[in-house]
């Protein structure tokens, strides 16, 4: 870790934020923020010397003096394009602030609470206190510490015991163009009680042009016993955006949770997914797709913790990288001593479409139990020339054939998404995105050369 640059600026921002923060009269929340800020000041931003950040250099974030994003009002017409039809509820945040007029909360089903976190802290602090900050680790991750220090607004979702929410709850985070470099620290709390069922989509997007924005989000998702929960993350901001997001999942006994991540946009993106399987018989699916081009840097850091016996986790991440894009997949699996009969699986597949695209893929298994099954594998390859020729030989143009092959590769991930509404939304975004990926166009040089490196290990 490095000394914090612009420490004065951070201190000023923190002091300013504290003055208007939600629940500033609540001692527990005040302490949570103060401790987190102290921790951040102690550690500073990580550097590539830290093992967890070896492949991702965040100095561009560290050396920028960010200001809080401004309060901006958007008309409903400005955000019409971003809607997801058939959501159970929609919460819209503009520059980190909840916008009641853009949100849609009229049809929230019975037994379900959907609100802004800020509002909920004011109205029902005791509910929030039970969970907020109890899972996300400010000690290990400076970005989590920073987010916690600046807890302001975000989504609060609570699903009561046994309640099944059919349609997903849609959370949209929009950033606008500003003069200065700005930041937001969205904080979400999703609590699904025993035997409940819920799906939440977090969607990060930009409106009205590009400026340097830094979105540092933390979501705590608590799934009770036998609860079924799905979380979707979509990053599609412009290329000047820094986006760090951390999903911390706490799973109870026999809970079945899925995390789906789709990284399309953002210049420097870090996607942390940290499920803890804390109750027996839990299942976790960790599924992701990242499509990088230009000079995008897309880092996926998985930290799957098996803390109870008889749990299963499956990780599937597919990456397509073009231009000078750099992708990272870090798959850490920790099996605690108590977690016998763990069945953990990890697969990372990558397509590199250009000579300059790069992927770092790294499994990291820490197993302290003796009766477990952990497998991991990674592949790095290019569009297969045989497959391309086969499609062309039937009359399909090279361009179309490439597109079909890329979509098929992306679909492996998209098809794992259980919610029809979420999958439909993501399928549209991915297809649109692939249409504009430069690697679809024929490139001499890379076409005939097929490099396939396969690493398969069972440990």
């Amino acid at each position, binding site marked *: 870790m490095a000394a914090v640059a612009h420490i004065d600026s951070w201190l000023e921002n923190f002091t300013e934020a504290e003055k208007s923060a939600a629940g500033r009269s609540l001692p527990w929340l005040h302490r949570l923020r103060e401790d987190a800020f102290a921790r951040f000041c102690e550690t500073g931003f990580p550097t590539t010397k830290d093992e967890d950040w070896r492949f991702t250099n965040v100095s561009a974030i560290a050396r920028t003096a960010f200001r809080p994003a401004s309060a901006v009002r958007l008309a409903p017409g400005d955000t019409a394009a971003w809607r997801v039809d058939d959501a159970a509820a929609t919460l819209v945040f503009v520059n980190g602030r909840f916008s009641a007029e853009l949100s849609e909360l009229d049809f929230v089903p019975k037994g379900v609470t959907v609100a802004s976190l800020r509002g909920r802290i004011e109205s029902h602090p005791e509910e929030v206190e039970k969970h907020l900050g109890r899972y996300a680790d400010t000690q290990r991750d400076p970005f989590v510490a920073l987010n916690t220090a600046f807890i302001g607004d975000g989504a609060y979702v609570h699903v009561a015991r046994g309640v099944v929410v059919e349609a997903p709850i849609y959370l949209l985070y929009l950033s606008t163009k500003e003069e200065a470099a700005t930041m937001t620290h969205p904080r979400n709390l999703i609590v699904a009680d025993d035997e409940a069922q819920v799906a939440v989509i977090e969607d990060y997007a930009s409106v009205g042009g590009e400026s340097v924005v830094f979105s540092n989000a933390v979501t705590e998702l608590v799934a009770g016993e036998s609860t079924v929960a799905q979380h979707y993350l979509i990053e599609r901001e412009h290329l000047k955006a820094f986006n760090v997001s951390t999903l911390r999942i706490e799973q109870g006994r026999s809970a079945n949770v899925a995390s789906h991540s789709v990284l399309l946009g953002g210049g420097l993106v870090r996607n942390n997914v940290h499920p803890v399987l804390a109750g027996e018989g839990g299942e976790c699916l960790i599924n992701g797709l990242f499509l990088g081009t230009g000079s995008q840097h897309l880092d996926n850091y998985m930290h799957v913790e098996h803390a109870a016996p008889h749990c299963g986790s499956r990780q599937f991440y597919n990456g397509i990288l073009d231009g000078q894009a750099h992708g990272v997949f870090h798959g850490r699996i920790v099996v605690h001593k108590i977690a016998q009969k763990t069945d953990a699986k990890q697969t990372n597949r990558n397509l590199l479409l250009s000579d300059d695209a790069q992927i770092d893929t790294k499994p990291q298994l820490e197993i302290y139990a003796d009766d477990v099954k952990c497998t991991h594998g990674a592949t790095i390859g290019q569009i297969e020339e045989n497959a391309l*020729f086969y*499609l*062309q030989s*039937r*009359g*399909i*143009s090279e361009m179309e054939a490439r597109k079909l*092959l890329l979509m098929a590769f992306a679909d492996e991930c998209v098809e794992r998404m259980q919610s029809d509404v979420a999958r439909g939304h993501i399928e549209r975004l991915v297809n649109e995105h692939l249409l504009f990926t430069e690697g679809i166009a024929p490139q001499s040089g890379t076409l005939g050369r097929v490099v396939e490196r396969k690493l398969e290990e069972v440990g």
Partner: protein
Amino acid sequence: MSLLEIRNLHVSVGGNEILKGIDLTVNAGEVHSIMGPNGSGKSTLAQVLARRDAYQVTEGSILFEGKNLLEMKPEEAACEGLFLAFQYPVEIPGIGNTYFLRSALNAQRKHRGQDEMDAMDFLPMFREKLKLLEMDDKLMNRSLNEGFSGGEKKRNEILQMAVLEPKLAILDETDSGLDIDALRIVAQGVNSLRSPERAMVVVTHYQRLLNYIVPDFVHVLVDGRIVRSGGKELALELEEKGYSWTEHEPVGARA
């Protein structure tokens, strides 16, 4: 004008000359068989015709309906009516069989200035062809060739041919690895497509397939050259006497 005219074709792969001056004329309505030992250049000829770019044509010409085939990309050759049944059909996960075949057919129809076929028109026609190849339509909901047995893959090739209705079909060792039942079904599918407008080039190592698909002409390819041409009786003679009978060099002299 002949459908296919190959003149003095020389082809190299990575500096090795594989085809050393092939001459072959195929007219509409004809079925030609190209036989030869392993490594004689049969598959190279098939792949060059389908316009695979890994092969360098160093000399000679190929005209397809009078047009220069060597200037065409694989998809253009396909749209002009050339079809290759692959010796090793490729498995492509994530692309559905039916979707793929309809996309291919529509790409070809578009090229010919015809309207694209929607699912309503496509499916009845498709079901007919499936019946012809005695294929389970459940296979069609799966990814292209994925998890297909060897026989299913070969039948899928002929199914594609039946749907795309090419002018010239090249069957590259479609018989290899097939049991007798599968062979009969494949041959039946091929025979049903024989017509005065359509020509076929059947590339095979064994005479077996030719019991079912009776050729008009048989050519023997040895070491990159056609060393003998004749009628269907040539295939029987080969079966009896072996390839060494036609060769100036011993069998398997080159890979």
